[in-house]
């Protein structure tokens, strides 16, 4: 799964790792996350852009 840019639709979303400080994103703010996380957040966010991953050049033998 790739990454997406999303916009927050609710008052606050706190995100972060389990052992670290969480960051709070407020209504209207945007952040980049995985598609999986965007799916989990559901309608709390709107996907505004799907980010294409840079294509790695294949190694020639």
């Amino acid at each position, binding site marked *: 799964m790739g990454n997406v840019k999303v916009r927050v639709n609710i*008052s*606050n979303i706190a995100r972060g*790792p*389990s052992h670290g400080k*969480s960051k*709070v994103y407020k209504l209207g703010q945007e952040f980049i996350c995985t598609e999986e996380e965007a799916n989990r957040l559901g309608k709390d966010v709107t996907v505004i852009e799907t980010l294409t991953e840079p294509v790695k050049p294949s190694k020639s033998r």
Partner: protein
Amino acid sequence: MTNAYTQYSKSVDSELVQPLQNVTVGRRLVYVTAPKGFGVTSVDWGKISDMSGGYVSYGFADGNEDMIDVALTNSKVPVYWKDYKVDRRLYNGWMINNTDMDVSAAQSAGYVATATEDAAIINGVTRNGTTYDINGLYQGAGNNYSTSADFGTYGNAMAAIAGAKQLMVDDGIPAYNIPLNLALSSEQYGELEKSTDNGFDEWPKVLRMLNGGSVYPVPSTVLGVGTGMLLPTPSVGRPYVDFFSTSNFRTEHGVDSKHPDTSDLYGRVYSAGILRIKHANAICKLSNI
């Protein structure tokens, strides 16, 4: 005969209410209004929006009034129901001999209808599993603590509750001073129940953080695995969210008119009401636990 069926329905109702009250979770999470009558099919109500900030000065000045920003909403009131059949001979036995009434069919139907109402209150009403026609508490929450906090690890439940309370307080909900209820998907409830570290259980600490509120398990079919939510208890939560009830759980019975003396008894158990989230920021979902 109508009177006999009504009498039978009343008898079933009296045997049904207590067991259903024991299994319902949704009605224990929110303030439930007195039933307004089954004929009430819609309700107008106001969603509170934020006002501008208050003022400080050495005197009062005119022209600073805000209108209370209330978005008027009209909601249709859905019905939660399930039909069932009662064997005619069992019914006749109850009529003639006054034998113990078998309410198992009604009770089973009642549990299903209760689960439907619970799902509507706790999560919402959806037909396709993704789009919600009516938001429940979880779908309508204004805050989301999505920081990874697996309840299987000691300390994460406390961290999640602390984080959720902080989000609510920053939105003007006095989460540090009012009793809060914590509703958890059954798996996370189990993890919290057994969470311990060097003999120190996490459960009593979590209860202390709820300021007198309780922890409720919700079937994972209603509230998905890895999720939960924090919200004010019904005693203080009425300004933020309530369940506008038009009918408590009741039953009705009738027979097929083609065979009035021998057909099975057809029963229906039903309730009606709608969840009204007046201030969404008073609910904080925990979506990554």
